[in-house]
Protein backbone atom coordinates (compact mmCIF):
# COMPACT_ATOMS: atom_id res chain seq x y z
CA UNK A 1 0.00 0.00 0.00
CA UNK A 2 1.18 3.45 -0.90
CA UNK A 3 1.76 5.99 1.83
CA UNK A 4 -1.19 8.10 2.86
CA UNK A 5 -1.57 11.53 1.29
CA UNK A 6 -4.39 12.57 3.56
CA UNK A 7 -4.92 11.56 7.18
CA UNK A 8 -7.91 12.95 9.02
CA UNK A 9 -7.90 12.36 12.76
CA UNK A 10 -10.69 12.95 15.28
CA UNK A 11 -12.33 15.58 13.11
CA UNK A 12 -15.17 17.47 14.79
CA UNK A 13 -17.23 20.17 13.11
CA UNK A 14 -19.95 22.00 14.99
CA UNK A 15 -22.44 24.48 13.63
CA UNK A 16 -24.09 27.17 15.70
CA UNK A 17 -22.99 29.04 18.78
CA UNK A 18 -23.55 29.09 22.50
CA UNK A 19 -26.12 26.61 23.71
CA UNK A 20 -27.48 25.93 20.24
CA UNK A 21 -24.70 23.75 18.87
CA UNK A 22 -25.16 21.02 16.30
CA UNK A 23 -22.33 18.53 15.90
CA UNK A 24 -22.35 17.74 12.17
CA UNK A 25 -19.13 15.73 12.20
CA UNK A 26 -18.39 13.81 15.35
CA UNK A 27 -14.90 12.42 15.88
CA UNK A 28 -14.24 11.13 12.39
CA UNK A 29 -10.91 9.60 11.34
CA UNK A 30 -9.84 8.15 8.00
CA UNK A 31 -6.94 8.23 5.57
CA UNK A 32 -6.53 8.18 1.80
CA UNK A 33 -3.47 6.60 0.15
CA UNK A 34 -1.66 8.65 -2.49
CA UNK A 35 -3.13 7.90 -5.90
CA UNK A 36 -6.08 6.07 -4.37
CA UNK A 37 -9.76 6.82 -3.94
CA UNK A 38 -11.73 6.85 -0.72
CA UNK A 39 -15.49 7.16 -0.85
CA UNK A 40 -17.67 8.56 1.89
CA UNK A 41 -21.27 7.39 1.66
CA UNK A 42 -24.29 8.32 3.65
CA UNK A 43 -27.69 9.94 3.45
CA UNK A 44 -28.60 13.60 3.64
CA UNK A 45 -27.50 15.19 6.86
CA UNK A 46 -24.92 12.55 7.75
CA UNK A 47 -22.09 15.08 7.60
CA UNK A 48 -20.37 13.96 4.43
CA UNK A 49 -20.53 17.34 2.70
CA UNK A 50 -19.39 19.07 5.87
CA UNK A 51 -16.25 16.93 5.75
CA UNK A 52 -15.69 18.03 2.14
CA UNK A 53 -16.01 21.67 3.12
CA UNK A 54 -13.63 21.20 6.03
CA UNK A 55 -11.02 19.55 3.78
CA UNK A 56 -10.95 22.47 1.36
CA UNK A 57 -11.27 24.76 4.38
CA UNK A 58 -14.46 26.43 3.27
CA UNK A 59 -15.10 26.08 6.98
CA UNK A 60 -12.87 25.71 10.01
CA UNK A 61 -13.18 22.48 11.99
CA UNK A 62 -13.97 22.72 15.68
CA UNK A 63 -11.17 20.28 16.47
CA UNK A 64 -9.14 17.48 14.94
CA UNK A 65 -6.32 17.16 12.45
CA UNK A 66 -6.41 17.28 8.64
CA UNK A 67 -2.94 16.10 7.73
CA UNK A 68 -2.14 16.62 4.06
CA UNK A 69 1.29 15.16 3.46
CA UNK A 70 2.63 16.51 6.75
CA UNK A 71 0.77 19.83 6.89
CA UNK A 72 -2.18 20.22 9.26
CA UNK A 73 -4.78 22.13 7.23
CA UNK A 74 -7.20 22.31 10.14
CA UNK A 75 -5.19 24.87 12.10
CA UNK A 76 -3.93 27.18 9.36
CA UNK A 77 -5.07 30.78 9.05
CA UNK A 78 -6.46 32.11 5.79
CA UNK A 79 -3.10 33.73 5.06
CA UNK A 80 -1.18 30.53 5.66
CA UNK A 81 -3.70 28.55 3.62
CA UNK A 82 -3.49 30.73 0.54
CA UNK A 83 -0.23 29.36 -0.86
CA UNK A 84 -1.36 25.74 -0.40
CA UNK A 85 -5.03 25.94 -1.29
CA UNK A 86 -4.26 24.75 -4.81
CA UNK A 87 -3.22 21.37 -3.41
CA UNK A 88 -6.77 20.40 -2.49
CA UNK A 89 -9.44 21.18 -5.07
CA UNK A 90 -13.12 20.45 -5.21
CA UNK A 91 -15.67 19.41 -7.81
CA UNK A 92 -19.09 20.52 -6.68
CA UNK A 93 -22.42 18.77 -6.78
CA UNK A 94 -24.46 21.24 -8.77
CA UNK A 95 -23.06 21.86 -12.24
CA UNK A 96 -25.59 24.68 -12.67
CA UNK A 97 -24.70 26.66 -9.59
CA UNK A 98 -20.95 26.16 -9.41
CA UNK A 99 -19.85 27.98 -12.57
CA UNK A 100 -20.14 31.76 -13.02
CA UNK A 101 -22.64 32.13 -15.88
CA UNK A 102 -21.05 35.41 -17.05
CA UNK A 103 -17.60 33.98 -17.67
CA UNK A 104 -16.50 31.96 -20.68
CA UNK A 105 -15.12 28.47 -20.14
CA UNK A 106 -11.72 29.97 -21.02
CA UNK A 107 -11.97 32.53 -18.20
CA UNK A 108 -13.20 29.91 -15.74
CA UNK A 109 -10.38 27.47 -16.43
CA UNK A 110 -7.62 30.06 -16.93
CA UNK A 111 -8.24 31.84 -13.62
CA UNK A 112 -6.57 29.23 -11.40
CA UNK A 113 -3.68 29.06 -13.89
CA UNK A 114 -3.21 32.83 -13.61
CA UNK A 115 -3.56 32.75 -9.84
CA UNK A 116 -0.76 30.21 -9.66
CA UNK A 117 1.57 32.69 -11.34
CA UNK A 118 1.33 32.10 -15.06
CA UNK A 119 1.65 35.67 -16.44
CA UNK A 120 1.70 35.01 -20.17
CA UNK A 121 -1.76 35.27 -21.69
CA UNK A 122 -0.76 32.91 -24.40
CA UNK A 123 0.47 30.25 -21.98
CA UNK A 124 -2.71 30.63 -19.90
CA UNK A 125 -4.73 30.09 -23.03
CA UNK A 126 -2.76 27.07 -24.17
CA UNK A 127 -2.97 25.43 -20.76
CA UNK A 128 -6.72 26.06 -20.54
CA UNK A 129 -7.16 24.59 -24.02
CA UNK A 130 -5.17 21.49 -23.07
CA UNK A 131 -7.30 21.00 -19.95
CA UNK A 132 -10.57 21.48 -21.82
CA UNK A 133 -9.46 18.85 -24.31
CA UNK A 134 -8.33 16.60 -21.48
CA UNK A 135 -11.86 16.55 -20.05
CA UNK A 136 -13.28 15.63 -23.43
CA UNK A 137 -14.61 18.98 -24.68
CA UNK A 138 -13.67 20.57 -28.01
CA UNK A 139 -11.29 23.54 -27.98
CA UNK A 140 -14.12 25.70 -29.35
CA UNK A 141 -15.91 25.24 -26.02
CA UNK A 142 -13.52 27.79 -24.50
CA UNK A 143 -15.41 30.67 -26.12
CA UNK A 144 -18.76 29.60 -24.75
CA UNK A 145 -20.46 30.37 -21.43
CA UNK A 146 -21.97 27.88 -18.93
CA UNK A 147 -25.63 28.34 -19.99
CA UNK A 148 -24.73 26.95 -23.41
CA UNK A 149 -23.53 23.68 -21.92
CA UNK A 150 -25.44 20.64 -20.69
CA UNK A 151 -25.10 19.45 -17.10
CA UNK A 152 -22.51 16.82 -18.02
CA UNK A 153 -20.44 19.31 -20.04
CA UNK A 154 -20.55 21.80 -17.16
CA UNK A 155 -19.32 19.15 -14.80
CA UNK A 156 -16.42 18.53 -17.20
CA UNK A 157 -15.60 22.26 -17.05
CA UNK A 158 -15.75 22.06 -13.25
CA UNK A 159 -13.25 19.19 -13.35
CA UNK A 160 -10.98 21.15 -15.74
CA UNK A 161 -11.09 24.13 -13.37
CA UNK A 162 -10.17 21.93 -10.41
CA UNK A 163 -7.30 20.34 -12.37
CA UNK A 164 -6.05 23.78 -13.44
CA UNK A 165 -4.71 24.40 -9.94
CA UNK A 166 -2.56 21.30 -10.13
CA UNK A 167 -4.06 19.62 -7.06
CA UNK A 168 -2.81 16.55 -5.22
CA UNK A 169 -6.23 15.78 -3.77
CA UNK A 170 -9.52 16.18 -5.58
CA UNK A 171 -12.64 16.28 -3.39
CA UNK A 172 -15.70 15.32 -5.43
CA UNK A 173 -18.85 16.16 -3.50
CA UNK A 174 -21.75 14.30 -5.17
CA UNK A 175 -20.07 15.22 -8.45
CA UNK A 176 -22.32 12.99 -10.55
CA UNK A 177 -25.59 12.94 -8.64
CA UNK A 178 -27.19 15.73 -10.69
CA UNK A 179 -26.41 13.91 -13.93
CA UNK A 180 -28.33 11.36 -15.98
CA UNK A 181 -27.07 7.79 -15.64
CA UNK A 182 -25.47 7.68 -19.09
CA UNK A 183 -23.70 11.02 -18.50
CA UNK A 184 -22.74 9.92 -14.99
CA UNK A 185 -21.03 6.86 -16.47
CA UNK A 186 -18.99 9.11 -18.79
CA UNK A 187 -17.90 11.46 -15.99
CA UNK A 188 -16.90 8.51 -13.77
CA UNK A 189 -14.86 7.11 -16.64
CA UNK A 190 -13.18 10.49 -17.15
CA UNK A 191 -12.25 10.68 -13.45
CA UNK A 192 -10.84 7.15 -13.57
CA UNK A 193 -8.80 7.98 -16.70
CA UNK A 194 -7.33 11.11 -15.13
CA UNK A 195 -6.36 9.17 -12.03
CA UNK A 196 -4.69 6.44 -14.06
CA UNK A 197 -2.74 9.07 -15.97
CA UNK A 198 -1.71 11.49 -13.23
CA UNK A 199 -1.92 9.52 -9.99
CA UNK A 200 -4.28 12.10 -8.54
CA UNK A 201 -5.89 11.19 -5.18
CA UNK A 202 -9.68 11.34 -4.83
CA UNK A 203 -12.02 11.74 -1.95
CA UNK A 204 -15.37 10.85 -3.44
CA UNK A 205 -18.52 11.78 -1.58
CA UNK A 206 -21.76 10.16 -2.66
CA UNK A 207 -25.03 8.70 -1.52
CA UNK A 208 -25.02 6.22 -4.39
CA UNK A 209 -23.48 2.86 -3.51
CA UNK A 210 -23.23 1.82 -7.16
CA UNK A 211 -21.21 4.91 -8.04
CA UNK A 212 -18.98 4.32 -5.04
CA UNK A 213 -18.30 0.76 -6.13
CA UNK A 214 -17.38 1.99 -9.60
CA UNK A 215 -14.80 4.51 -8.43
CA UNK A 216 -13.33 3.72 -5.03
CA UNK A 217 -11.15 1.04 -3.46
CA UNK A 218 -12.07 2.01 0.08
CA UNK A 219 -15.32 3.25 1.56
CA UNK A 220 -16.45 4.90 4.76
CA UNK A 221 -20.16 4.75 5.66
CA UNK A 222 -21.38 7.67 7.71
CA UNK A 223 -24.49 8.32 9.66
CA UNK A 224 -25.43 11.23 11.91
CA UNK A 225 -21.90 12.62 11.88
CA UNK A 226 -20.16 9.38 12.76
CA UNK A 227 -18.50 6.56 10.86
CA UNK A 228 -20.57 3.39 11.18
CA UNK A 229 -18.45 1.11 9.03
CA UNK A 230 -15.41 1.27 6.79
CA UNK A 231 -13.26 -1.01 4.71
CA UNK A 232 -12.49 -2.20 1.20
CA UNK A 233 -15.42 -1.23 -1.01
CA UNK A 234 -16.02 -4.71 -2.39
CA UNK A 235 -16.04 -6.31 1.06
CA UNK A 236 -18.30 -3.63 2.44
CA UNK A 237 -20.86 -4.07 -0.29
CA UNK A 238 -20.83 -7.84 -0.49
CA UNK A 239 -20.68 -8.43 3.27
CA UNK A 240 -21.96 -5.32 5.06
CA UNK A 241 -21.59 -5.87 8.80
CA UNK A 242 -23.53 -2.99 10.26
CA UNK A 243 -27.30 -2.95 10.17
CA UNK A 244 -27.30 0.55 8.68
CA UNK A 245 -25.02 -0.41 5.80
CA UNK A 246 -27.23 -3.42 5.14
CA UNK A 247 -30.26 -1.18 5.04
CA UNK A 248 -28.59 1.19 2.60
CA UNK A 249 -27.59 -1.78 0.47
CA UNK A 250 -31.12 -3.17 0.55
CA UNK A 251 -32.69 0.16 -0.37
CA UNK A 252 -30.62 0.58 -3.53
CA UNK A 253 -32.96 -0.44 -6.31
CA UNK A 254 -31.02 -2.39 -8.87
CA UNK A 255 -33.02 -3.36 -11.94
CA UNK A 256 -30.42 -5.98 -12.84
CA UNK A 257 -31.01 -7.87 -9.61
CA UNK A 258 -34.77 -7.74 -9.75
CA UNK A 259 -35.21 -10.25 -12.52
CA UNK A 260 -37.73 -12.83 -11.42
CA UNK A 261 -38.56 -11.05 -8.19
CA UNK A 262 -42.08 -9.86 -7.57
CA UNK A 263 -41.48 -6.12 -7.25
CA UNK A 264 -44.24 -5.41 -4.77
CA UNK A 265 -42.92 -8.08 -2.51
CA UNK A 266 -39.43 -6.67 -2.71
CA UNK A 267 -40.49 -3.16 -1.78
CA UNK A 268 -42.41 -4.47 1.20
CA UNK A 269 -39.26 -6.23 2.28
CA UNK A 270 -37.19 -3.07 1.91
CA UNK A 271 -39.75 -0.87 3.62
CA UNK A 272 -40.19 -3.31 6.49
CA UNK A 273 -36.49 -3.23 7.20
CA UNK A 274 -36.64 0.50 7.66
CA UNK A 275 -36.90 1.29 11.31
CA UNK A 276 -39.02 4.02 12.81
CA UNK A 277 -35.77 5.70 13.70
CA UNK A 278 -34.77 6.41 10.08
CA UNK A 279 -38.14 7.87 9.39
CA UNK A 280 -37.67 10.41 12.12
CA UNK A 281 -34.13 11.17 11.11
CA UNK A 282 -34.99 11.73 7.45
Amino acid at each position, binding site marked *: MAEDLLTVSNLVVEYGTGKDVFRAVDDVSFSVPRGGTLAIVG*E*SGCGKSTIAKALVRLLTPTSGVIDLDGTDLARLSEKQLRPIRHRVQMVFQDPYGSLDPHLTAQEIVAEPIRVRGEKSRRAQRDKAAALIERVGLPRTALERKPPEFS*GGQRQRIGIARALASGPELLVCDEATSAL*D*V*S*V*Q*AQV*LELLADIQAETGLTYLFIS*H*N*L*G*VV*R*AISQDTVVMRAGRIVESGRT*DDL*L*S*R*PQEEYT*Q*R*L*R*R*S*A*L*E*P*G*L*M*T*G*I*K*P*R*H*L*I*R*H*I*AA*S*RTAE*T*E*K*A*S
Partner: protein
Amino acid sequence: MRVLEVTDLQVELLTGTSVVRAVDGVSFHIDQGETVTIIGESGSGKSTTAMAILRLLPDDLAVISGEARIGGQDVTGSRKVIDKLRGRAVALIPQDPMTALNPIRTIGRQMTEAVRIKYPDLGRAEAKARALSLMEQVHIRNPTKQFDAYPHQLSGGMLQRVLIAMAVSTDADLIVADEPTSALDVTVQAGILDLLLELQEQTGIALLLITHDLGVARLMSDRVHVMKAGAFVEGGPVTDVVDHPQHPYTQKLLGAIPELGPWEDPGAREPLVKEASHG
Protein backbone atom coordinates in the same frame (compact mmCIF):
# COMPACT_ATOMS: atom_id res chain seq x y z
CA MET B 1 -61.90 0.91 -17.12
CA ARG B 2 -59.69 3.15 -19.19
CA VAL B 3 -58.64 6.03 -16.99
CA LEU B 4 -56.26 7.73 -19.38
CA GLU B 5 -55.99 7.38 -23.12
CA VAL B 6 -53.34 9.39 -24.92
CA THR B 7 -53.29 9.34 -28.72
CA ASP B 8 -50.57 10.88 -30.86
CA LEU B 9 -49.81 13.61 -28.32
CA GLN B 10 -47.49 16.33 -29.56
CA VAL B 11 -46.12 19.27 -27.63
CA GLU B 12 -44.21 22.06 -29.29
CA LEU B 13 -42.37 24.46 -27.01
CA LEU B 14 -41.77 27.98 -28.29
CA THR B 15 -38.36 29.21 -27.22
CA GLY B 16 -38.22 32.77 -28.49
CA THR B 17 -36.53 32.13 -31.79
CA SER B 18 -37.22 28.47 -32.44
CA VAL B 19 -39.75 25.73 -31.88
CA VAL B 20 -38.79 22.52 -30.11
CA ARG B 21 -40.97 19.48 -30.52
CA ALA B 22 -40.58 18.18 -26.98
CA VAL B 23 -43.18 15.46 -27.34
CA ASP B 24 -43.42 13.94 -30.77
CA GLY B 25 -46.48 11.79 -31.18
CA VAL B 26 -46.77 9.53 -28.13
CA SER B 27 -49.68 7.18 -27.51
CA PHE B 28 -50.43 5.11 -24.42
CA HIS B 29 -53.22 4.28 -22.02
CA ILE B 30 -53.71 3.49 -18.34
CA ASP B 31 -56.48 1.30 -16.93
CA GLN B 32 -57.89 1.42 -13.43
CA GLY B 33 -55.50 0.12 -10.80
CA GLU B 34 -52.58 0.15 -13.20
CA THR B 35 -49.22 1.85 -12.96
CA VAL B 36 -47.70 2.98 -16.22
CA THR B 37 -44.27 4.53 -16.16
CA ILE B 38 -42.48 6.80 -18.60
CA ILE B 39 -38.72 6.38 -18.20
CA GLY B 40 -36.25 8.75 -19.75
CA GLU B 41 -33.28 11.01 -19.16
CA SER B 42 -33.43 14.78 -18.76
CA GLY B 43 -34.79 16.46 -21.85
CA SER B 44 -36.46 13.31 -23.13
CA GLY B 45 -39.89 14.92 -22.82
CA LYS B 46 -41.24 12.68 -20.07
CA SER B 47 -42.19 15.50 -17.70
CA THR B 48 -43.49 17.61 -20.58
CA THR B 49 -45.82 14.73 -21.49
CA ALA B 50 -47.17 14.64 -17.94
CA MET B 51 -47.47 18.41 -17.69
CA ALA B 52 -49.24 18.55 -21.05
CA ILE B 53 -51.81 16.00 -19.92
CA LEU B 54 -52.42 18.07 -16.78
CA ARG B 55 -52.34 21.27 -18.88
CA LEU B 56 -49.79 22.80 -16.58
CA LEU B 57 -47.80 24.26 -19.47
CA PRO B 58 -48.46 27.92 -20.32
CA ASP B 59 -50.57 28.29 -23.47
CA ASP B 60 -48.33 30.93 -25.01
CA LEU B 61 -45.24 28.75 -24.73
CA ALA B 62 -46.56 25.28 -25.49
CA VAL B 63 -48.73 24.11 -28.35
CA ILE B 64 -50.47 20.81 -27.70
CA SER B 65 -52.02 18.62 -30.36
CA GLY B 66 -53.33 15.10 -30.45
CA GLU B 67 -55.64 13.71 -27.83
CA ALA B 68 -55.48 12.95 -24.12
CA ARG B 69 -58.65 11.62 -22.56
CA ILE B 70 -59.00 11.48 -18.79
CA GLY B 71 -62.09 9.44 -17.94
CA GLY B 72 -63.20 9.85 -21.53
CA GLN B 73 -62.88 13.63 -21.67
CA ASP B 74 -60.33 15.15 -24.02
CA VAL B 75 -58.24 17.69 -22.10
CA THR B 76 -56.20 18.99 -25.02
CA GLY B 77 -58.87 21.40 -26.19
CA SER B 78 -60.50 23.99 -23.99
CA ARG B 79 -58.95 24.55 -20.56
CA LYS B 80 -62.41 24.39 -19.05
CA VAL B 81 -62.27 20.60 -19.26
CA ILE B 82 -59.07 20.14 -17.28
CA ASP B 83 -60.04 22.85 -14.80
CA LYS B 84 -63.00 20.67 -13.83
CA LEU B 85 -60.90 17.51 -13.62
CA ARG B 86 -57.75 18.70 -11.86
CA GLY B 87 -57.96 18.09 -8.13
CA ARG B 88 -61.03 15.93 -8.71
CA ALA B 89 -60.47 13.22 -11.29
CA VAL B 90 -56.73 13.69 -11.61
CA ALA B 91 -54.11 14.85 -9.10
CA LEU B 92 -50.38 15.49 -9.19
CA ILE B 93 -47.63 14.41 -6.84
CA PRO B 94 -44.80 16.82 -7.63
CA GLN B 95 -41.10 16.07 -7.74
CA ASP B 96 -39.67 18.29 -5.05
CA PRO B 97 -41.59 18.09 -1.77
CA MET B 98 -39.46 20.83 -0.24
CA THR B 99 -40.75 23.53 -2.58
CA ALA B 100 -44.19 22.23 -3.49
CA LEU B 101 -45.91 23.56 -0.39
CA ASN B 102 -46.42 27.14 0.64
CA PRO B 103 -43.79 27.82 3.33
CA ILE B 104 -45.86 30.35 5.26
CA ARG B 105 -49.04 28.31 5.65
CA THR B 106 -49.49 25.36 7.97
CA ILE B 107 -49.73 21.82 6.66
CA GLY B 108 -53.30 21.67 7.96
CA ARG B 109 -54.43 24.77 6.12
CA GLN B 110 -53.01 23.46 2.84
CA MET B 111 -54.50 20.02 3.42
CA THR B 112 -57.99 21.34 4.09
CA GLU B 113 -57.76 23.56 1.04
CA ALA B 114 -57.06 20.49 -1.09
CA VAL B 115 -59.88 18.55 0.58
CA ARG B 116 -62.34 21.35 -0.20
CA ILE B 117 -61.62 21.40 -3.93
CA LYS B 118 -63.52 18.17 -4.28
CA TYR B 119 -65.85 18.70 -1.33
CA PRO B 120 -66.50 22.46 -1.13
CA ASP B 121 -69.47 22.03 1.21
CA LEU B 122 -67.46 20.50 4.04
CA GLY B 123 -67.46 22.56 7.22
CA ARG B 124 -64.25 23.57 8.95
CA ALA B 125 -64.33 20.74 11.46
CA GLU B 126 -65.28 18.14 8.86
CA ALA B 127 -62.51 19.23 6.51
CA LYS B 128 -60.04 19.04 9.38
CA ALA B 129 -61.28 15.59 10.38
CA ARG B 130 -60.89 14.38 6.81
CA ALA B 131 -57.41 15.90 6.54
CA LEU B 132 -56.37 14.19 9.78
CA SER B 133 -57.66 10.81 8.65
CA LEU B 134 -55.78 11.22 5.35
CA MET B 135 -52.59 12.05 7.23
CA GLU B 136 -53.11 8.88 9.22
CA GLN B 137 -53.67 6.94 6.02
CA VAL B 138 -50.29 8.03 4.67
CA HIS B 139 -48.69 7.05 8.00
CA ILE B 140 -47.76 10.47 9.29
CA ARG B 141 -47.10 10.02 12.96
CA ASN B 142 -48.93 12.27 15.36
CA PRO B 143 -51.13 13.95 12.72
CA THR B 144 -52.77 16.40 15.15
CA LYS B 145 -49.38 17.87 15.92
CA GLN B 146 -48.20 17.92 12.29
CA PHE B 147 -51.49 19.52 11.24
CA ASP B 148 -50.36 22.77 12.84
CA ALA B 149 -46.73 22.49 11.68
CA TYR B 150 -45.18 24.54 8.90
CA PRO B 151 -43.52 22.77 5.95
CA HIS B 152 -39.98 23.57 7.12
CA GLN B 153 -40.62 21.65 10.33
CA LEU B 154 -41.11 18.38 8.42
CA SER B 155 -38.53 16.19 6.70
CA GLY B 156 -38.57 15.65 2.92
CA GLY B 157 -40.09 12.20 3.30
CA MET B 158 -42.85 13.50 5.56
CA LEU B 159 -43.59 16.40 3.18
CA GLN B 160 -43.90 13.95 0.32
CA ARG B 161 -46.40 12.00 2.44
CA VAL B 162 -48.39 15.21 2.94
CA LEU B 163 -48.40 15.81 -0.82
CA ILE B 164 -49.51 12.23 -1.44
CA ALA B 165 -52.28 12.73 1.13
CA MET B 166 -53.35 15.89 -0.73
CA ALA B 167 -53.42 14.01 -4.02
CA VAL B 168 -55.39 11.15 -2.47
CA SER B 169 -57.80 13.57 -0.76
CA THR B 170 -59.34 14.27 -4.14
CA ASP B 171 -60.51 10.66 -4.59
CA ALA B 172 -59.01 11.00 -8.06
CA ASP B 173 -59.08 8.15 -10.56
CA LEU B 174 -55.62 9.04 -11.80
CA ILE B 175 -52.54 10.29 -9.99
CA VAL B 176 -49.61 11.67 -11.93
CA ALA B 177 -46.40 11.25 -9.96
CA ASP B 178 -43.50 13.20 -11.45
CA GLU B 179 -40.26 11.80 -10.00
CA PRO B 180 -41.95 11.39 -6.60
CA THR B 181 -38.87 10.05 -4.83
CA SER B 182 -35.97 11.63 -6.72
CA ALA B 183 -35.36 14.25 -4.05
CA LEU B 184 -35.37 11.71 -1.22
CA ASP B 185 -32.79 9.45 0.40
CA VAL B 186 -32.94 5.79 -0.66
CA THR B 187 -34.19 4.46 2.65
CA VAL B 188 -36.96 7.07 2.67
CA GLN B 189 -37.71 6.33 -0.98
CA ALA B 190 -38.62 2.74 -0.14
CA GLY B 191 -41.22 3.93 2.37
CA ILE B 192 -42.83 6.34 -0.10
CA LEU B 193 -42.99 3.75 -2.88
CA ASP B 194 -44.50 1.28 -0.42
CA LEU B 195 -47.11 3.87 0.51
CA LEU B 196 -48.05 4.46 -3.14
CA LEU B 197 -48.47 0.70 -3.68
CA GLU B 198 -50.57 0.42 -0.54
CA LEU B 199 -52.87 3.29 -1.55
CA GLN B 200 -53.25 1.79 -4.99
CA GLU B 201 -54.25 -1.55 -3.49
CA GLN B 202 -56.81 0.17 -1.27
CA THR B 203 -58.33 2.50 -3.83
CA GLY B 204 -57.62 1.02 -7.25
CA ILE B 205 -56.25 4.35 -8.36
CA ALA B 206 -54.36 4.52 -11.66
CA LEU B 207 -50.84 5.88 -11.55
CA LEU B 208 -48.82 7.64 -14.24
CA LEU B 209 -45.27 7.56 -12.97
CA ILE B 210 -42.52 9.69 -14.45
CA THR B 211 -38.99 8.67 -13.50
CA HIS B 212 -35.41 8.47 -14.71
CA ASP B 213 -34.72 5.63 -12.29
CA LEU B 214 -35.01 2.19 -13.86
CA GLY B 215 -34.96 0.58 -10.44
CA VAL B 216 -38.00 2.55 -9.33
CA ALA B 217 -39.73 1.81 -12.64
CA ARG B 218 -38.99 -1.90 -12.31
CA LEU B 219 -40.51 -1.97 -8.83
CA MET B 220 -43.62 0.07 -9.37
CA SER B 221 -44.87 -0.45 -12.89
CA ASP B 222 -47.19 -2.77 -14.69
CA ARG B 223 -46.10 -1.33 -18.02
CA VAL B 224 -43.31 1.05 -19.00
CA HIS B 225 -42.50 3.28 -21.95
CA VAL B 226 -38.92 4.32 -22.58
CA MET B 227 -38.77 7.86 -23.93
CA LYS B 228 -35.99 9.49 -25.87
CA ALA B 229 -35.99 12.79 -27.76
CA GLY B 230 -39.75 13.18 -27.51
CA ALA B 231 -40.78 9.71 -28.67
CA PHE B 232 -41.26 6.27 -27.15
CA VAL B 233 -38.51 3.93 -28.30
CA GLU B 234 -39.73 0.86 -26.47
CA GLY B 235 -42.71 -0.14 -24.37
CA GLY B 236 -44.48 -3.07 -22.81
CA PRO B 237 -44.78 -5.04 -19.58
CA VAL B 238 -42.06 -3.97 -17.15
CA THR B 239 -40.67 -7.48 -16.88
CA ASP B 240 -40.07 -7.53 -20.65
CA VAL B 241 -38.62 -4.06 -21.07
CA VAL B 242 -36.33 -3.90 -18.04
CA ASP B 243 -35.33 -7.55 -17.81
CA HIS B 244 -35.00 -8.12 -21.56
CA PRO B 245 -34.58 -4.75 -23.28
CA GLN B 246 -34.73 -4.87 -27.08
CA HIS B 247 -33.94 -1.31 -28.06
CA PRO B 248 -30.26 -0.25 -27.97
CA TYR B 249 -31.14 2.91 -26.02
CA THR B 250 -32.84 0.91 -23.25
CA GLN B 251 -29.86 -1.44 -23.19
CA LYS B 252 -27.52 1.54 -22.94
CA LEU B 253 -29.54 3.04 -20.07
CA LEU B 254 -29.44 -0.22 -18.16
CA GLY B 255 -25.76 -0.65 -18.88
CA ALA B 256 -24.96 2.79 -17.49
CA ILE B 257 -26.27 1.98 -14.02
CA PRO B 258 -23.32 1.24 -11.75
CA GLU B 259 -23.85 -2.20 -10.26
CA LEU B 260 -23.50 -3.11 -6.63
CA GLY B 261 -22.65 -6.74 -7.21
CA PRO B 262 -24.11 -9.74 -5.40
CA TRP B 263 -24.55 -9.98 -1.66
CA GLU B 264 -26.20 -12.12 0.93
CA ASP B 265 -28.95 -10.14 2.59
CA PRO B 266 -28.86 -11.18 6.26
CA GLY B 267 -32.35 -9.70 6.69
CA ALA B 268 -33.95 -11.60 3.81
CA ARG B 269 -36.62 -14.03 4.91
CA GLU B 270 -37.90 -17.10 3.14
CA PRO B 271 -40.99 -15.59 1.47
CA LEU B 272 -38.87 -13.25 -0.67
CA VAL B 273 -37.10 -16.16 -2.27
CA LYS B 274 -40.26 -18.22 -2.66
CA GLU B 275 -42.17 -15.44 -4.37
CA ALA B 276 -39.19 -14.92 -6.60
CA SER B 277 -39.34 -18.38 -8.06
CA HIS B 278 -42.79 -18.00 -9.53
CA GLY B 279 -42.81 -14.20 -9.87
